[in-house]
């Protein structure tokens, strides 16, 4: 088992080595004290909590720790783990490019090959191209189901939908496919249509937030969340497994951690607003998340110019959902209703 930090990583590569990735988004609402001792006060709670969780033994069941370079804080965490903490598990950093052109794909192919070597050394296995392709195709199938669930999200309440799709963070692809098939077989919509909104940010924690949105009469019709909508990986085409994995990883919707320009992010958000007939956008940011916060003012200005109201809420994953955050969401929904 590998503990994997956010956001993008090659699931199929890990699975080809018979390693099951379990993602670590925080976790929320834990005692972050152990993590805080090693990090600056301005490091976000995703990184701080992850380190605290590791130090308190929460990741003991895992054999590997994968740290993708999504932002400076995660890169810093990778260094701290390798240089100072030196956990029992091997720590595998993954340096992602900031762009999706040909040279970025080439760079990522090299990174994935280096990761293959590291995994090979750790697991004493060396899967061939056929095994890699089989693993890739299994993940592609799971991702197709994931995309279909996004299309048919109205079958579930907002809360149930995100609980379901976030199972992709820990279930093996085959388990997720089974789950998705069951849901997709269900007939019709089970939720009550609410005020449509688009949700943007990193991770919808605490999940009770989603129940609050429903209780306040809202409904998330599309998302630009790092853990969800920004990870709709397209199916690959290349016959080379490493190129195929790289193309898929970089073929996602616009993402600030992959260097997407703000104009592309704005266009994507406006596209989701239009398609979902959303009446507003809620930016739900984790405090001190630089990639999110750098873009936020320009995105909000752009939405305002397009006549789309927006709301920003900042949270710390260690805290429960605050009354103030609920009030802001309710007031925003009352305003746009």
């Amino acid at each position, binding site marked *: 088992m590998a503990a994997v930090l956010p956001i993008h990583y090659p699931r199929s590569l890990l699975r080809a080595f018979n390693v099951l990735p379990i993602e670590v988004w925080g976790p929320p609402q834990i005692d972050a004290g152990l993590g805080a001792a090693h990090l600056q006060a301005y490091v976000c709670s995703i990184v701080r909590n992850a380190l605290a969780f590791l130090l308190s033994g929460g990741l003991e069941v895992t054999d590997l720790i994968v740290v993708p370079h999504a932002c400076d804080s995660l890169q810093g965490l990778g260094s701290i783990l390798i240089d100072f903490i030196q956990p029992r598990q091997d720590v595998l950093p993954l340096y992602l490019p900031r762009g999706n052109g040909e040279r970025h794909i080439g760079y990522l192919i090299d990174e994935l090959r280096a990761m293959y070597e590291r995994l090979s050394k750790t697991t004493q296995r060396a899967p061939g191209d056929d095994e890699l392709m089989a693993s890739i195709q299994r993940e592609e199938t799971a991702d197709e189901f994931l995309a279909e669930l996004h299309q048919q999200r109205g079958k579930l309440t907002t809360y149930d939908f995100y609980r379901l799709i976030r199972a992709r963070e820990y279930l093996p692809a085959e388990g997720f496919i089974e789950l998705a098939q069951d849901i997709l077989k269900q007939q019709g919509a089970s939720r009550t249509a609410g005020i449509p909104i688009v949700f943007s940010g990193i991770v919808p924690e605490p999940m009770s937030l989603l129940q609050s949105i429903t209780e306040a009469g809202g409904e998330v019709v599309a998302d630009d969340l790092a853990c969800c909508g920004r990870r709709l990986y397209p199916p690959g085409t290349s016959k080379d497994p490493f190129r195929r994995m790289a193309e898929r990883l970089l073929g996602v919707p616009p993402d600030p951690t992959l260097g997407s320009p703000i104009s592309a992010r704005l266009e994507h958000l406006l596209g989701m607003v239009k398609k979902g007939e959303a009446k507003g956008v809620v930016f739900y940011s984790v405090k001190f998340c630089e990639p999110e916060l750098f873009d936020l003012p320009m995105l909000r200005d752009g939405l305002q110019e397009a006549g789309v109201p927006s709301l920003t809420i900042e949270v710390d994953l260690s805290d429960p959902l605050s*009354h*103030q955050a609920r009030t*802001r969401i309710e*007031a925003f929904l*009352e*305003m746009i209703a």
Partner: protein
Amino acid sequence: MGEKKREFWRWTEYNWHNPDVNPKDAEAITGGVDVGAVSTQAVIMTDGALYALASMRTGSDSPDSARNAMNWAMEDSGLAIDDLHYTVGTGYGRVNVPFAQRAITEIACHARGANFIYGPSVRTVLDMGGQDCKAIHCDEKGKVTAFLMNDKCAAGTGRGMEVFADLLSVPIEEMGDMSLDVEKEPPMVSSTCVVFAKSEAVGLLREGWPKSKVLAAYHAAMAHRVVNLLDRIGMEKEFAITGGISKNTGIVTRLKRELGVEPLATEYDAQIAGAIGAALFAQDLLLKQRNEI
């Protein structure tokens, strides 16, 4: 020994009803209850006109506070809670108003209440409450078009003022006037955090600053912080202040100075704006309900 310590933070609780109106003649008797962090207001409206109100401290139990405030508003009116045709709860305890049919945020209710109190020309409402501050834009009907909240600390709020009232042993209702009793504005306290500002104030008192000067330094810092909130949302005329701090002349005067804008005046107690807004929403919802039947 045994002497009760004076609580300087205590503000005047009161109730009122219009003796010239028989509420039972009204077609619509609606209630609005604003259960805030510090105070609770209950308002009764008869056919859309203000009939009765009560303003009191919020206790540790929100449902009790709501019930007590409404019962006090009904005192000597011949009304009982069951006579209310529709009630809306608002404020941080809005979901804990046992006799309310709906809960609506204080942001929407203050905008609607300000529209009632100050008239349809109001476009920017500054609600300075017990626990947070809100800058709200609204249209001519009192519908919110944008808002910003400072909800991260007690700076510039009633709770902060209460802390300073007790620290300086100055009755809270006299603090504003006393803060203006200085020849020249002193430098603001540097921290907007109530806890740190309190420590800073203790230091200033030890240096020999008179209470009025310490209060001036604190009030100026609080007003400045609120101006930042208004700057972020943008000031659209006309401008009105609601919430308990609207009664603090020290803050209001400094806001006028910094903003260069005269807030609208009213004969109403602007602290009840939220409850009035809630009662007005209750009136709308009652009429909608009756039309649907």
